[in-house]
């Protein structure tokens, strides 16, 4: 049924529909609605909810639940996600699936509680120690807060890797109509029976004991493990997702993710009506990134304007994709500032002139 939903609530329903069996979290604005609503929904559905003593504990509780093969999630906002980085690195090293949501706020430090996009590098380039990638999804509507969270669990299990949903405080707090199926049917139903997935720890009844670790001290062991992980990160391109409009005949293509993509779309429709050849491209997955499509467009000498709620992070990936074949421009605002339509239009006029 289509009705008004707040982004953070839609995210919770998405997790439940995606089969999330356990949630561990710690309060932080602007994602408190997630933890609060989870505490109600998970309990009434007979699933696991626990308010952890810190984000450090929360991510390690996720680690514990994940190694049994259960579908597990945590959510936080920027400072809390920083605290989780060690745990995320261990989850990747141990090849454990889980979903981590970052409802970004302004930084650095305690920053503010406005929405921002300053954690792109942290999400997309690893974040913790070691050579690794997360699969990163970037919703842009309340509907996608639901859809992407729902889908995230399957991706996490497909690759046995943490999936990060990178959103922000504005989307989390925003109300808009969305089509969401509230899982009331399974009310009273408990978590699914534990399955043997061939790697999970469930107690060794009927099989040889297993262990899960990330310490690999044997000659060449860690190098081999890393090559195996890298292969997996490359394979993630199978689930690459982006959308575009008007790129084929455009002179300048606007690129942004999440909230910025909505603003870009408004600019795109306004300028198209005026007859300007503007294109619109939105990565829905930030890793993997639509680098091939961007390179293709760059070879045809289309220019790019990247818009972000930061001083310029994704723009580096656009530049790497363009690889010198065309020009890349940037407009962004950090610390909770939201890019304005007029400023983007001015910038485009400058580029065209």
């Amino acid at each position, binding site marked *: 049924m289509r009705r008004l939903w707040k982004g953070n609530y839609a995210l919770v329903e998405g997790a439940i529909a995606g089969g999330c069996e356990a949630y561990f979290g710690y309060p932080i604005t602007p994602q408190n609605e997630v933890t609060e609503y989870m505490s109600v929904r998970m309990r009434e559905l007979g699933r696991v909810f626990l308010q952890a003593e810190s984000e450090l504990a929360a991510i*390690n509780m996720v680690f514990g639940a994940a190694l049994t093969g259960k579908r597990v999630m945590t959510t936080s906002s920027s400072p809390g996600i920083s605290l989780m980085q060690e745990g995320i690195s261990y989850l990747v090293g141990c090849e454990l699936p889980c979903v981590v949501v970052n409802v970004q706020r302004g930084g650095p430090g305690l920053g503010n509680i406005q929405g921002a996009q300053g954690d792109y590098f942290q999400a997309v380039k690893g974040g913790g120690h070691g050579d690794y990638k997360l699969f990163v999804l970037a919703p842009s509507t309340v509907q996608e807060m639901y859809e992407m969270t729902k889908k995230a669990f399957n991706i996490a299990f497909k690759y046995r890797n943490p999936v990060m949903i990178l959103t922000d405080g504005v989307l989390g707090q925003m109300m808009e109509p969305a089509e969401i199926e509230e899982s009331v049917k399974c009310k009273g139903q408990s978590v699914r029976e534990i399955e043997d997935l061939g790697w999970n720890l*469930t107690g060794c009844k009927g099989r040889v004991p297993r*262990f899960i670790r990330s310490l690999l001290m044997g000659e060449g062991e860690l190098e081999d493990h890393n090559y195996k992980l890298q292969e997996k990160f490359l394979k993630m391109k199978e689930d690459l997702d982006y959308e575009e409009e008007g790129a084929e005949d455009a002179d300048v293509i606007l690129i942004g993710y999440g909230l910025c993509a909505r603003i870009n779309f408004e600019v795109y429709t306004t300028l198209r009506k005026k007859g300007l050849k503007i294109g619109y491209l939105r990565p829905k997955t930030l890793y993997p990134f639509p680098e091939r499509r961007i390179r293709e467009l760059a070879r045809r000498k289309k220019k790019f304007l990247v818009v972000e709620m930061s001083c310029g992070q994704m723009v580096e990936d656009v530049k790497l994709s363009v690889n010198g074949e065309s020009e890349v421009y940037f407009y962004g605002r950090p610390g909770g500032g939201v890019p304005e339509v007029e400023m983007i239009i001015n910038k485009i006029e400058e580029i065209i002139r």
Partner: protein
Amino acid sequence: MKFKIPESLKPVPNHYCPGCGHGIIHRIMAEAIDELGIREKVIAIAPVGCAVFGYFYWNFDTAEAAHGRPPAVATGIKRVLPDRIVITYQGDGDLAAIGGNELLHSANRGENITILFVNNACYGMTGGQMAPTTPLGYRTTTTVNGRVIDDGYPLKVCELIKDLEGVGYCERVSVEDPRNIMKAKKAIKNALKCQIEKKGFSLVEFLSMCPTGWRVSPVEAIEVVKRMKEVFPIGVFKSKL
């Protein structure tokens, strides 16, 4: 003592130094698990510390956790699989220093998990630095003239947690001679019974030898453990059994 290898131990040699307490504690843990018939239900967590390779020796499902986080990892497992037996095995650096917060809150929540806490008064794995449990006056590589008050007082974990309502069983034992080893094994069984009967958080602290970290002979290490009891009295601090 029996010399049959317990089913809960793999028949392989371990990497511990001569005179180390870890091998002894592994053995009595394995015997206790066998005697309670719970091996196939156990999910254990190895620490970051000398016992990190526990999974090479323990014949049950085991995971390795980040330094200090085993109680949080155990919480995650136990919450989704409440009928499994979840055990963490941690050193004093792991449990009492970097993992102090996870210890406190898992104990306070009364998580039905069992912590086997090896207090060897130093950081063995990283070369014998001061631990929170190092008694005053003891020399380590970061207190070369002996620990002084400025370095902090030795942290008494059992005394710290015993009054928390969530704690169901808490005992301090030592493993320097056969008599104490037998008592230590009984303590492990009690702690596991506490978990099986869902009576809350359980912890056994072992005063244990680290001749390498202390830079003494295995024989002298036994004397050190005896002296540690002046600071860390052994006994049952709490039992809801």
